[in-house]
């Protein structure tokens, strides 16, 4: 064993009473690639935010020991000064600035105080790009013109320009295709070998981890489960990682459903949608699928496969341009020209990212719950709101789906993620839909709340509603869906029935399709 560059000892972190990290320990050796694995909400990002000073010293308990000394970071600048750089899932690049400008943003080469030395900036930028094998790029070109993979590499170059010693990458390949991912992973290996840079990488992609990681630490529900050490050149067993991540038998996590699957209620034929930014590119091509009453149908796919775009383009054309294709409900064609028409046709869409698309955080539970049905059951012909009905409905749903809040007049911004998600669900249940499209309904909420959401989904299906579920968590799709469509690069590349559904089968469909297209 070589020396440890970083030790995080007995880290505890709470968010308003909820334990996010519970006595987490992490040891990273100098010059290794250390992977951190865990389900969404397991606490990986929280741990990295503590390490990089996003959550300042004092807001957590335990010690961060870096190069033998206890660190008390107050912000990101503190950790960067020590050579720790974090690259978040959402890139922190400014698309309209050049590569060189982006690389030295916040870390400018100065000629005089506050005066930038552009010559040095460009020269250094070129040097760094060369060291990562991107000599071909013009450092004066804007970053926005680069592909996602290259942008991710510019982020790494930006870190290198800061004399990084410990590089943290939060799901760096989630938005990349296979080729770009490989390029990035090779770069990490190269940096390790040639410059001795230590990396910590958070990832869900097991094949990547077993390929490049030296050690893997598994976190579950805010606790460290184990650290798996790589033996020589033998790749790490993926099954062992999964067992550590999930930790319990799948059947416990997903409540059973007793829904009678009925007739086809919702059918989409040859749905083709162009990217509104680049109308020549089709974001979705010839997508066809159907859902039956009482059925839960999943959509699997990588980030960027077009699942959210599919849902939003169906839901009153809130995404895309030049929409082509047919929507049939109960066998009759319907045209959903806007959201209100979709609601009137009893379609509901529970969006991903409840803060941005689902809720008005300033307002209270009752107010948010009724927002999508104001024109229907909550107002009279003169558009005057039936306030009493609002109160009855909100009280009813608060009880029915167990929203933990003091009252229906509590601001939704002050609720926990799981309860916020329940408010969004209630909002769309109140619109009395026949078809519910749920986009990442359990993202960022804890295991207990997830179970409750699954229970709600089951009840909806049992009452004869058709559910379309989009999720990036494959175990969730496997656990809750009757059938899964696999989407890749805007096309349906496969349909799996309950008996055929497993993680490998889904990944295989995606990989085969990508391989066929040569991307």
């Amino acid at each position, binding site marked *: 064993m070589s020396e440890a560059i970083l030790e995080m000892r007995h880290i505890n972190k709470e968010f308003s009473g909820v334990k996010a990290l519970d006595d987490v320990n992490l040891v990273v050796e100098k010059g290794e690639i250390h992977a951190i694995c865990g389900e969404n909400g397991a606490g990986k990002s929280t741990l990295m935010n503590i390490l990089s000073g996003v959550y300042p010293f004092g807001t957590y308990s335990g010690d961060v020991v870096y190069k033998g000394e206890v660190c008390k970071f107050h912000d990101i600048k503190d950790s960067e000064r020590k050579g720790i750089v974090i690259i978040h899932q959402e890139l922190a690049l400014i698309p309209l600035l050049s590569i060189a400008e982006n690389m030295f943003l916040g870390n400018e080469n100065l000629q005089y105080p506050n005066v930038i030395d552009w010559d040095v900036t460009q020269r250094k930028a070129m040097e760094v790009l060369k060291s990562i094998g991107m000599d071909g790029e013009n450092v004066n070109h804007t970053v926005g013109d680069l592909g996602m993979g290259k942008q991710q590499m510019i982020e790494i170059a930006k870190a290198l320009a800061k004399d990084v010693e410990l590089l943290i990458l939060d799901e760096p390949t989630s938005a990349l295709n296979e080729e770009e991912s490989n390029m990035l992973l090779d770069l990490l290996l190269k940096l390790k070998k040639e410059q001795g840079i230590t990396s910590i990488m958070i990832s869900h992609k097991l094949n990547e981890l077993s390929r490049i990681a030296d050690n893997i630490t598994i976190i579950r529900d805010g606790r460290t489960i184990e650290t798996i050490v790589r033996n020589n050149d033998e790749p790490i067993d993926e099954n062992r990682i999964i067992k550590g991540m999930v930790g319990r038998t799948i059947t416990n996590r997903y409540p059973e459903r007793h829904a009678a699957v009925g007739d086809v209620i919702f059918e989409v034929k040859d749905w083709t949608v162009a990217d509104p930014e680049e109308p020549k590119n089709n974001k979705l091509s010839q997508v066809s699928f159907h859902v039956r009453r009482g059925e839960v149908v999943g959509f699997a796919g990588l980030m960027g496969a077009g699942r959210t775009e599919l849902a939003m383009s169906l839901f009153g054309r809130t995404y895309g341009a030049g929409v082509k294709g047919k929507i049939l409900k109960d066998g009759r064609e319907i045209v959903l020209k806007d959201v209100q028409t*979709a*609601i009137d046709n009893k379609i509901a869409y529970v*969006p991903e990212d409840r803060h941005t698309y689902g*809720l*008005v955080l300033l307002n209270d539970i009752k107010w948010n719950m009724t*927002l999508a049905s104001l024109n229907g059951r909550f107002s009279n012909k003169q558009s005057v709101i039936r306030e009493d009905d609002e109160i009855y409905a909100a009280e009813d749903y608060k009880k029915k789906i167990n929203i933990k809040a*003091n009252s229906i*007049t509590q601001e939704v911004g002050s609720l926990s993620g799981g309860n916020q998600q329940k408010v969004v669900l209630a909002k769309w249940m109140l619109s009395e839909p026949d078809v519910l499209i749920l986009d990442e309904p359990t993202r960022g909420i804890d295991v207990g709340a997830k179970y409750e959401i699954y229970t709600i989904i089951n009840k909806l299906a049992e009452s004869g509603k058709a559910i379309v579920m989009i999720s990036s968590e494959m175990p969730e799709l496997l656990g809750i869906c009757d059938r899964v469509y696999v989407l890749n690069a805007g096309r349906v590349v496969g349909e799996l029935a309950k008996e055929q559904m497993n993680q490998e089968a889904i990944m295989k469909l995606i990989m085969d399709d990508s391989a066929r297209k040569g991307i």
Partner: protein
Amino acid sequence: MSVELAKGTETSEMKDNLKQLKQYGMIIALVVIYSIFAVMSDFKNVAPMNVNNLIMQNSYVIILALGMLLCCLTGNVDLSVGSVVAFTGAIAAIMVVDYHMAIPVAFLAALVLGTIIGMWQGFFIAALGVSPFIVSLANMLVFRGLALVVLRGQTKGPLPHDFTVVGAGYLPQFFTNIGGTKIELLSLVAGIVISLFIVFMELHSRRNKLRQGFAVSSKMAMLFKMALSVLIVNFFTIKLAMYMGLPMVLLIVLVLIIIYTFVTTRTVPGRQIYAVGGNRKAAALSGIKVNHVMFWIYTNMGLLAGLAGIVLSARNASATPKAGDMFEMDAIAACYIGGTAVAGGAGTVTGAVVGALIMGVLNNGMSLLGWSVDVQRVVKGLVLLAAVSVDLYFKQKKNA
């Protein structure tokens, strides 16, 4: 878990108290400012004539603030209202003075013109997606310029009595003599009727809520609220009774306040405005046609600017190309002093009206003290800055 819940209840109660305090806070601030000026001006500002002036001088700011509130609720402003006031007022005056057209026709024309100007702005904002700030800045220049053009840079007047009655006239007066002072009876009756109405509505809604098992505020809080409202209403009506009775414009403003309160709190379109301001994307995905909402908000602002144009030229008995200068700033300031969130999504009609009254009391008080317009601007600016800062400070404290 139970500890956590208990903690939650406590903070939510505190939040409720804070909310109420904020509402009363503005009214109390208004009373305090008014009292300070009362002392400083040897109680000149509570004299019946001055109370009357206070209402007449501020009526257009209140009218504009009602429309501006809707803009502010979406996180935007309309900078063109002062210019639109001048232009619509000018057109109405020209129609009456130069072309001898019937006064109702001129009024209607000004209102329609204001509405069309609002639609014109709404078109750029909603259909083309140009930022409201830019659109209204451009139209501020356009309509100020047009006002100068149509008036040829000169004042148009004098306007006939039937015109000026809207801004400077009174409702029918019934004078009597009580203990040596001339008293106008209609004002007194109005005060009593409004007081009874307030008490009745408050009790009615409370009984209704209790019957359905909904939460109600404490009895003390309700009594305090009722007493405060009744006191303020009768202060004004008694003062007005001691002067010339109820100004016509007060009736207009009251009717508007009632309409806008109802629309913003009780109707679907009102709710949609708050949703658009609170979270545009979520609003759109809830079936709200954001562009339609924006279009109608600016159309409505144009209509109210037209009305303010009529009222202002009526009060001045003439139209001038400089009329309404900086009115947009007074209206915007009224909204923000009244607690409207700068980012949009939160704010009330009551708040905007109280904000407008605070601005008015400041204007009026400083004028009575003989302070120059320059100093008045400094003070008004500082008050706006202080009001918004205090509001923000408490919000941050609440979140911490």
